């Protein structure tokens, strides 16, 4: 049961979930906001593929590029227009705003496009399968692993080697003190939203490729997965989000192969029950904290 196929499938599902979780935790780390509009960035990217393919007849690589750019743009604009004006108010104002943005974006596509699902045409090679050591694997699964690996390395270089990355890590730790260094608050927050949108856009390509369709509520499921992965992984570090994503993928796939056929449809219920039990015993998540405690002396 645990063979190469299982390993690759788990890694690919874990990669996708890690991307989703990472995009959510980057904004949370800095604004302490669980951005409930995050799922909508994924949904918008899906529609961008659909619209660019049907209206512009764009080739596949352009549709994917447009999808990622659309998610980045919407993420950036929601910060600029919706979150920035209420940022100095209470944290509650921010979270209510994120719900409002979510509902607003859902209704935009509902009215402008259609309440019904639209087909999303993905690159021809996504559905190809290849054989590795006797295991048959969809090419899509290998692609998501490779793309995630590249993004994780790039993001970690950005955070470690660039001044903006340092400022973002500093801001996640002590926001006001970071401003005291002369780092503009808006720069750090905008950057977080841009990267969050980028990850949502890339994840969206692989997310919508599973059903090959998109509808106004497409963002709900990936948001929930990202949220659970972040909470179980640990909310205070990007590492926690990545670990949470991979663990979520692993447990999900283990349930898929171990549950009897009659119970497979209750997989999510089992998943959530496990998460609840886990959080009872370890409320801080797998990675306890991303910051060191101050030593006294």
């Amino acid at each position: 049961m645990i063979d190469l196929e299982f390993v690759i499938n788990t890694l690919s599902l874990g990669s996708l979930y890690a991307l989703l979780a990472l995009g959510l935790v980057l904004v949370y780390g800095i604004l302490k906001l669980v951005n409930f509009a995050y799922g909508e960035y994924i949904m918008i990217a899906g529609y961008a593929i659909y619209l660019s393919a049907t209206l512009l007849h764009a080739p596949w690589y352009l549709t994917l590029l447009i999808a990622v750019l659309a998610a980045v743009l919407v993420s950036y604009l929601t910060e600029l227009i919706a979150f920035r004006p209420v940022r100095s108010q209470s944290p509650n104002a921010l979270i209510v705003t994120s719900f409002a943005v979510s509902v607003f974006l859902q209704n935009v596509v509902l009215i402008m496009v259609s309440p019904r699902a639209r087909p999303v045409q993905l690159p021809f090679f996504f559905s190809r399968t290849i054989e590795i050591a006797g295991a048959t694997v969809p090419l899509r699964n290998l692609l998501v692993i490779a793309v995630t690996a590249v993004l994780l390395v790039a993001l970690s270089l950005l955070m470690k080697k660039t001044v903006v990355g340092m400022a973002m890590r500093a801001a996640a730790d002590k926001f006001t003190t970071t401003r005291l260094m002369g780092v503009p608050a808006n720069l750090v927050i905008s950057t977080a939203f841009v990267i969050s949108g980028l990850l949502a856009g890339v994840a969206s390509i692989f997310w919508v490729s599973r059903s090959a369709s998109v509808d106004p509520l497409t963002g709900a499921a990936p948001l929930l997965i990202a949220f659970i992965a972040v909470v179980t992984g640990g909310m205070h570090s990007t590492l926690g989000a990545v670990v949470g994503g991979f663990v979520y993928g692993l447990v999900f796939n283990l349930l898929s192969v171990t549950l009897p056929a009659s119970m497979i449809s209750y997989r999510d219920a089992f998943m959530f029950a496990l998460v609840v039990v886990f959080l009872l015993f370890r409320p801080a998540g797998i990675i306890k904290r991303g910051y060191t405690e101050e030593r006294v002396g």
Partner: protein
Amino acid sequence: MAMLTVENLEASYGAVRALHGISIEVAEGELVALLGVNGVGKSTTLKSIMGVLRPVKGTITFEGQEITNRSPEKIVKRGISLVPEGREIFGTLTVEENLRLGAYVGFKRDRYKADLEEMFELFPILKDRFHQAGGLLSGGEQQMLAIARALMGHPKLIMLDEPSLGLSPAMTDQIFRLIVTLKERGSTILLVEQNAERALEIVDRAYLLANGQIEHAGTAEEIKRKVDVASVYFGDQTDADSCEVSL
């Protein structure tokens, strides 16, 4: 003409008024202290100057230009740097990264290396700890890092908020010696301290705060003469060397 002028500053936290009209001045090259017990508004004054807190009333002028209600990042750019209370080191960042962020304002690659060397000279311990996480440093080392981080931005005015708080007596001595060194190097310093007796040994002038207002102002000598009158503000007089503990 004064480098920093604060006029009739009033500030509040929600409905609670913390400052009732404070006026202070700091001239270039001066070392000035804001003294007073816990909760009289010393840190609030610094936070208001820095733009972290929006004043209710009053004006703050720096080098002839009004900076009231500017954002902290803009004020840092003008040349004021705050070493916050509790040091506020970025614990997950290395000492090197803390210093690099300190140099964020007006960063110049060619002078960065020289600035680092200068910091190593002032604080040799930072060289040993260069690649360690800031959170692993001791309290005194963190205080040094916080000061070095502020100096990396070449501030014209450096404001120190309770730099001796929670430090051992030996480390407190070292920090006070360092403040004198900084003044001798030409820095303009606004120092907030609860440890008034120690502060008065090194400063040019001081303001004594009580209940969000200035009770006394004058040179260190003048304030010292008023010490008996104002002894109530100086906390425990019996053991001057003990480090102050916030109540």
